[in-house]
């Protein structure tokens, strides 16, 4: 019963997202951008495919991120603000079911959107090359990494959405994404300064904030380079562990909150 209730919340979250026109605008924009990569390819002699894969994967990642943040920041806050939560939480459910259901629902939305955009990229690639090479399969590894990245971003959004306003949640999530994408650079910068305090600070940031830089393999994949299975395993474990911790923290905060 608990699983069915949680899945009902996830399903409704998915339904809410797919009935939002903004989502369609973003997906359409991403598909147009992927298609326009074909034009970029035509003016780049010899590297059309590399350009297409690079732009395609970047579009999927950026628009996925926009959708994750746009929908994620309002996940909990919107329900509290509009008071739609009152009728739902007065049903015999635990508060954690609501948080987890929302998280699963948004991830389902992102999965469907990402697959849709990926099909666009795959179609554009076929249009350009008229055949697939064995190394093209690594594009799907890059897409899987984008999904893991979005999984993590959703957890960050959900965490902030439990106690902050949508605008602040969006700013916090975006900042964390930017710093997390340059996590290794931040740590290297601290090491270069030779200042013990700064070094400790940047090392703490490196370990505390989610490290998004390891999920970016678009450059390698666009050149047909393989992605090692150990990286797939490590990234999966990292995303699942980190997102789980954030969801647990979100549940803890939300379970103690008065819904005034």
């Amino acid at each position, binding site marked *: 019963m608990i699983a069915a*209730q949680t899945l009902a919340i996830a399903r409704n979250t998915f339904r809410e997202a797919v009935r*939002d026109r903004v989502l369609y605008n973003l997906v359409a924009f991403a598909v147009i951008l992927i298609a326009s990569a074909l034009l970029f390819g035509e003016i780049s002699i010899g590297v059309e495919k590399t350009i297409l894969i690079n732009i395609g994967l970047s579009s999927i990642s950026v628009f996925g991120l926009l959708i994750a943040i746009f929908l994620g920041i309002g996940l909990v806050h919107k329900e509290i603000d509009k008071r739609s939560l*009152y*009728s739902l*939480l007065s049903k015999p459910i635990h508060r954690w079911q609501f948080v987890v259901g929302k998280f699963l629902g948004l991830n389902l939305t992102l999965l469907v959107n990402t697959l849709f955009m990926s099909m666009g990229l795959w179609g554009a690639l076929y249009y350009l090359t008229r055949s697939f090479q064995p190394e093209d399969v690594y594009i799907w590894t890059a897409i899987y990494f984008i999904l893991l990245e979005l999984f993590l971003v959703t957890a960050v959004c959900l965490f902030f959405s439990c106690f902050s306003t949508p605008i602040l949640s969006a700013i916090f999530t975006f900042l964390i994404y930017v710093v997390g994408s340059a996590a290794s650079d931040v740590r290297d910068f601290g090491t270069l300064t030779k200042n013990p305090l700064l070094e400790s600070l940047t090392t703490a940031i490196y370990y505390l904030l989610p490290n998004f830089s390891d999920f970016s393999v678009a450059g390698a994949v666009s050149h047909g380079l393989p992605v090692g299975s150990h990286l797939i395993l490590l990234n999966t474990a990292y995303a699942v562990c980190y997102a789980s911790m954030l969801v647990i923290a979100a549940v803890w905060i939300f379970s*103690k909150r008065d*819904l*005034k």
Partner: protein
Amino acid sequence: MAAIEISGLRKDYPVGFWRKRPWRALDNLSLCVERGEVFGFLGHNGAGKTTTLKILTGLIFPTAGAATIQGLPIGHPDALRNVGYLPENPYFYDYLTAEELLDYFSRFFPMSPEQRRQRRELVLEQAGLAEFRNVALRKFSKGMLQRIGVAQAVLHNPEIVLLDEPMSGLDPVGRRDVRNLILQLKSEGKTVFFSTHILSDAEAICDRVAILQRGKLVGVGQIAELLQRQSGFEAVIESCPAALLPRLQALASAPVLASGGHHRMELAEENVQGLLSLCATHSIRLISLNPLRFSLEDYFVELLRAGEEARGPAAAKAKAS
């Protein structure tokens, strides 16, 4: 076992930006709602009615005290298994249709798909929304939203129904429908606990009422019992000589009014005999003498006024210090 039992419930909200201080929304509330009764929860805005209902449904947590629903402590989902709740000014997912909303909410209860469908059909019919089942809720009027709110509250056939201002925003027909629904629930043996501002509705349908003021319970009991305490009489007599007016006024509990060749007065039961003697002695025709039934509104206003007066000296003292 009582349907709802509240014991020493207190709720403090922190207020202030820098230095948070507690603001007491609910102060040592204790009451008991018996099974099968319609219980009205009255009070002005900010009296603590919604706070109480939200605590019962687990939306907010009490600072102190406890409450049980059918013997189960609040705060655990099991306590809500047999409870239906309509929030104040309800808002539902406006991208769903009426049917989709009810289908969604029915999935939180142990019902088979067929049972879900049957209950959905029944409550849509009861709420008068059957023909709007496929209309998105964003197109619903306030009255229709209130109806779908009541429908979702009774969707799983709960034994206890909590309604927060169910008549709020409804036109007279809508109010009558909700009133009838509450009476129907009562006839089915359900317990209805509802807050309202509309005292005439409470008077018409409640078995018992509780009156809250500034988070404190100032009165509770059966309506008939509460109003009986204040009964009196209204007499209408023919115009009498001006010299007798002071004697009439002495018998009356409110100023004697003269209109259309008649005098109208309100008097306590113990003064009825005096009035009859006066009329007989001076050959004044008594046109009518009727028991005066005070309305719940009179009782309510009097209780609130008494509360304010009691609070007055204390408040003034606190201000001075």
